[in-house]
């Protein structure tokens, strides 16, 4: 028995001991995460606050248009048009002016969004069957809102014209518009898939990079290296708890989005989780790569921000549509992992499509994972050796 016990350390036991060490190392890492309550709280609060803000506050639909009416010679028709505007919930008449002179100052101070100028003799022209003139002046500093406001005002005025009597011989084409995948144009539906990418990046790239460099900065990485743990075990032990944390928060975001804001989930949950895992691996590889090449937490932080967070937020289509970007920036966006993940996540959640429509994006992510993981492992073992 005793000889057996003496012989085993040479063969199987160290392996077992190492595995035990790996578990212990992971437990230690979990404690590190749980101990820093403040960071944990903020990491949880960031995505949840975003879901709430995007769910309730950040809307692009224009529903309160502050109008200044320029009505130099009020008559029956201008009064009728004005009350027509007031009756439309979207419009609010904030000023009634006798001439257009104060408009410039009004717009400069942000007192109104658009002005509707009615010509003198509006009612007389209308009665006589001559075209009565209306001019819309919008504060076009925000181009999209300006276009939308004009469209709404046009609809009200056209309705008014129709009510005042048919022009005779006019034809009407009714345009039945349908918004596919997001009928209410709610920004939360578009943003939740992006938010999952954001959470996974934040935790798997930024947090791992910082936590690895912290061990470096404090010199504890050297201690770990002389322990029975192999380099890959150090990395796995470091990153595994973060993967779990990232997934938990991503699930929480999904649950909040589906439960409170009724964000649709039309596709397969399993597929989305699988793709999320792939995306997490890409982010982790980036995080490890950054940690291997930096020495201080501050540089790691900045590198992670510039190298992962910024492109993943700005060049991925989460907020700004890629189609609107200039060609060179669209070319750069091709190497941004989140760009591909967003297409996948939106496809699964909003369109309900499967792998058949998403194979290209998945293949790109898989390729990125392989290349980045290889680079990360190489660069990390080179630094450690």
């Amino acid at each position, binding site marked *: 028995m005793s000889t057996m016990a003496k012989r085993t350390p040479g063969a199987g036991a160290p392996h077992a001991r190492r595995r035990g060490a790996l578990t212990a190392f992971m437990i230690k890492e979990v404690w590190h995460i749980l101990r820093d309550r403040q960071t944990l709280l903020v990491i949880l609060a960031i995505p949840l606050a975003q879901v709430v803000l995007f769910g309730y506050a950040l809307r692009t639909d224009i529903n309160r248009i502050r109008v200044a009416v320029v009505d130099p010679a009020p008559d029956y028709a201008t009064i009728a048009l004005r009350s027509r505007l007031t009756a439309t919930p979207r419009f609010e008449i904030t000023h009634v002016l006798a001439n257009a002179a104060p408009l*410039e100052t009004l717009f400069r101070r942000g007192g109104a969004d658009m002005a509707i100028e009615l010509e003198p003799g509006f009612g007389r022209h209308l009665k006589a069957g001559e075209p009565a003139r209306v001019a819309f002046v919008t504060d076009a500093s925000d181009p999209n809102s300006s276009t939308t406001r004009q469209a709404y005002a046009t609809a009200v005025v056209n309705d008014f014209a129709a009510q005042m009597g048919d022009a005779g011989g006019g034809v009407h084409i009714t345009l039945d518009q349908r918004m596919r995948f997001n009928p209410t144009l709610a920004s939360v539906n578009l943003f939740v898939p992006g938010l999952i990418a954001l959470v996974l990046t934040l935790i798997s790239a930024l947090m791992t990079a910082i936590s690895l460099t912290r061990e470096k900065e404090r010199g504890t990485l050297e201690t770990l290296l002389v322990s029975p743990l192999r380099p890959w075990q150090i990395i796995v032990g470091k990153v595994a708890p973060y993967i779990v944390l990232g997934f938990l928060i991503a699930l929480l975001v999904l649950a909040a989005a589906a439960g409170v804001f009724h964000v649709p989930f039309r596709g397969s949950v399993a597929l989305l989780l699988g793709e999320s895992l792939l995306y997490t691996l890409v982010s982790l590889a980036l995080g490890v790569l950054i940690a291997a090449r930096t020495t201080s937490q501050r540089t790691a932080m900045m590198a992670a921000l510039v190298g992962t967070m910024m492109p993943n937020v700005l060049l991925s289509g989460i907020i700004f*549509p890629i189609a*609107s970007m200039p060609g060179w920036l669209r070319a750069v966006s091709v190497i941004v992992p989140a760009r591909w993940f967003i297409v996948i996540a939106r496809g699964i959640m909003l369109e309900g499509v499967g792998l058949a429509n998403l194979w290209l994006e998945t293949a790109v992510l898989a390729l990125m994972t392989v290349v980045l993981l290889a680079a990360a492992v190489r660069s990390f073992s080179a630094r450690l050796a």
Partner: protein
Amino acid sequence: MRILRFLLRKEYRQIFRDRLMLAQILLMPVIQLVILGNAATFEVTRAKLYVVDQDHTVASRGLVTRLVASGRFMLGGTSPSMALADQAVLQRRVNAIVNIPAGFERDLVTTRTAPVQLILDAKDGAAAGVTASYAGRIVNGYAAELSRARPRIAISSRNWFNPDLSYHDYMIPGILVELVTIGGTLLTAINITREKEIGTLDQLNVTPVTRAQFIAGKLIPIWSITLVEFAVGLVIAMLLFHVPMYGSFALVWFVAAVYLVAALGIGLWVSTVAETQQQAMFVVFFLLLIYLLLSGLFTPLTSMPVWAQWLAHLNPVMYFVAIMRAVMMKGAGPADVVVPFVVLVVYGAVVLTLAVRQYAKRTG
């Protein structure tokens, strides 16, 4: 005063010694401005349109021609099958379908009214709404053209302050605000927590340096560097992006100087709460996220629900973004921006006082 001078010399030296840090401070905003300036746009591009024409008449072809000729749509495919069109949308080859049902022309002639269906891929959000309003205008114009009757009311429209409807002109003044806010706040918070983490803050506390001197010694260098950054960004915005400046350069710079007091004050406050640099960074992230999203920078303020608008009115970023846009795009003068400016002054004073007090409590 002498002590403050020494502290300032030390801080400037520390910043200028760390080449990497200096590069981050000065180069980062430039890179960010170039990337963000190009990326941060909700400009509505031409929608790729799939045409399902089941009518095949002069009238239906006329409608398609008007849509494509408007410059708002380009032809992405055509077939009489809705199923094929749907497939094209799912494969992301097109982002809009126009469906002209059979009997379109006949209905127009006999009943003087006919329906047309427009389906938009709303995955890109606001763009779909804007494209829809363009489509509405084109279809109405076509109907008016067909009826050849004089309209009862003739509508003309003018776009003031931004006749080309340029998105750059609108976003870049706001992005400049975002850059100096993130830079200044993060730098302040991390700089002070670093002294805390390394332990040099305790050393400083036992020297004759007073708290006011210490804080002034920390804030003045960051404040001045961020102001230089702001000026550089402004020049780049004007030279590279041709963003107009109808108002006064000095006015926005002066407002920036006041605004930064509030922004750095927030960073100072964070540094009193956080123990480590990592914590400081995450807390700053969280605060800035809310500040920036509720600033009207990305979505119109008037579209927000009332409670969010109230929150926005407590937000210094909102006032500075509004002032920047008003001065640069609309040529607003001091008299036009006096209200938001006063709010910023009050905000800066309050935040700075609170942060200094909190700081005194923490280290006392």
